[in-house]
């Protein structure tokens, strides 16, 4: 009996260790980018503004540079740009219900573009599909995950687009008048 209980707790401990060590890779996807930070962010923005994505309700909600706040306080961090986007088509149903309105905490969708000490640029996204499954809104979040893949699909034959310096809260597309979603 003691052996069984001990085995049970050891099992729990092992699962916890595995979960803790793999948490980051499960929750977030990090992929290298062939471009610099600004160009990567600009290409993501350009993809978000493609007609097929606009048709899915997507618009830019903002562009944040958290490293500027650090600089204002006298310090340095490697560049980070947060590309914010939102789709009213996906946010609408979530915001409608009392039970799912809490997911507004994840709005707008944020894609982070950052530089590491190796000098390379990386893109970080949330694993929208897994989040949806975990919290029972898998159908909508699967669509978000599919669109996210389009955002990160770069066409090297296209010239570098200008970075759209959207003020957080501002937006385009359907949600523009309301300041994005």
């Amino acid at each position, binding site marked *: 009996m003691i052996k069984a209980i001990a085995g049970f707790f050891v099992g729990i401990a092992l699962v916890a260790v595995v979960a803790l060590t793999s948490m980051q890779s499960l929750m977030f996807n990090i992929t290298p980018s062939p*471009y*610099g*930070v*600004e*160009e990567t*962010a*600009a*290409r993501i923005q350009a993809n978000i503004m493609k007609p097929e994505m606009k048709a899915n309700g997507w618009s830019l909600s903002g562009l944040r540079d958290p490293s500027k706040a*650090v*600089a*204002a*306080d*006298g*310090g*340095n961090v*490697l*560049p980070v740009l947060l590309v914010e986007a939102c789709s009213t088509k996906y946010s609408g149903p979530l915001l409608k219900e009392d039970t799912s309105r809490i997911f507004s905490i994840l709005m707008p969708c944020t894609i982070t573009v950052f*530089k590491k*000490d*190796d*000098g390379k640029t990386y893109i970080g996204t949330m694993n929208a599909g897994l989040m949806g499954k975990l919290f029972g809104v898998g159908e909508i979040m699967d669509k978000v995950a599919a669109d996210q893949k389009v955002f990160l699909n770069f066409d090297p034959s296209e*010239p*570098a*687009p*200008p*970075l759209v310096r959207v003020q957080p809260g501002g937006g385009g597309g359907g949600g523009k008048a309301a300041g994005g979603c």
Partner: protein
Amino acid sequence: MNKLITQLGGTFSLLACLLFSANVTATVDAAPSSGAAATAAAPGEADTAKPKTGSTADHSKFEELDKDFATGPEVTEACLECHTEAAKQVQKTKHWTWEFLNPVTKQKLGKKNLVNNFCTSVRSNESFCNACHVGYGWEDDSFDFTSEVNVDCLVCHDTTGSYKKLPGLAGHPNYETMEWPPKSGKFREATDLKKIAQNVGKTSRDTCGACHFYGGGGDAVKHGDLDSSLAEPGRYLDVHMDADGLNFTCGTCHLSSSHEVSGSRYAPTAADDQGALIRGKNNDRNPTTCVACHGNAPHPGTSVSTAKLNAHTDKVACQTCHIPEFARGEIATKMTWDWSTAGKLDEQGKRIKIEGSEGRDSYDSNKGNFTYERFVIPEYVWFNGDIKYTLFGEKIAEDKVQINEFLGSADDPDSRIWPVKVFRGKQPYDIGNETLAVFHTAGNDDSAFWKNYDWDKALKTGMKTQGLEYSGQMKFVETEMSWPITHMVAPKDDALECAQCHKENGRLQAISGVYMPGRDNTPVIDRLGFTLALFALLGVILHGAVRWFMSKRS
């Protein structure tokens, strides 16, 4: 480690404050008293109309300067009435001659002679490039370098911020209202020479930056650690120049004497072990080095880690750890320049300019393609202060040309590991002459590349000014040029940490000739260590097992 570095940095800042509060040699002397000067304000009567400059002379009260000057040389003539030796002094400096004879390599350097991979050469483009010459009228070989009135005092001593030497005017400012930039529809008022002359003062970050921030044809193009964000920098960008802190000007470190400004990129001081420099002491030392203020043991304290940091100074330049990235301001620095794509025009035959993601030109018909980057992680090299340049006329066989080579090695006691910006480009090469080619870019004549986009004509004219006959055959070769990184010193908290270098694929991965724990290993020693550890573990287990077994028996 962070805490340690924080403490050390605090001490440095204090030391720097103390040293520099002693008010080191000024970069410009106050004007001598003149009988022609108007009466000064009564004692105790504060002149609140002007900010305090520290100067003992108010140039607006000099009769010599109370004139409607028509040209820059007329202003210089007035300056020289009091500052009788100033022009003679300036004419001995690199700022005037644009020449430098490297005493070690014996190469004749200076802007006048060098090739680079930005706009490539001053030759045949003097009226444009010489907007940054400290003189008036250098547009071709006929320029009189002995004429004292050709010296431009205002470009360094303007305090109004309104003095601009525009490209194309051979070092003159605009004396009449003119459209600037060309075809922009914007107009620049005629320069008010009287106002500027009456408000001269010490050099500033703005006056030095007017050229040094814009080297290579634009803001942040050439250096990477010098751009207009340093005009009013925050602490994060440069702890010494921090406008709300120490507020160093360029002249605070680049002390000058008789108008000769210290510090040189042609023969930099790569290693300085002579300790803190007593200001005013008459010797030939370069006062711009970190050691000149911070001393030979810049990390104070008696701990082992402090001693270890100080021990690094015999191999690692201060800049390597304390400038972890360059171009940390708002402005991305140019990293590549591809001349081979220049000359493309739109369907109407007009110049194309495409803006990239960084808000800067990624393509310009006049110049080709560019890339830019912010927070650039430097490349690192051994450097002993000697730089060997590839000069015009040198035969080159390779398709990849090192325009300059930083010399040094791990075995050389004068070498340190230095951070550099490596600028990569593609530029014209004369196949017949087997040399890098000079080409005529700017001007209103038919052979200027920016006028007609004809490489053959531009090369023919350019090579002729260099005394060579263009062979008629050209191609584009890849070039690399390195620039030492020494400005934009970060706050102490942002200095590199040990693990950023002491690891595989860390910052100093490319540095050879030195054993670096964490990066390098010796398999035999590693195996020996692991074996010893394994034996120790086995011993502990065995010992424990025996104890357990014996306790059971008893």
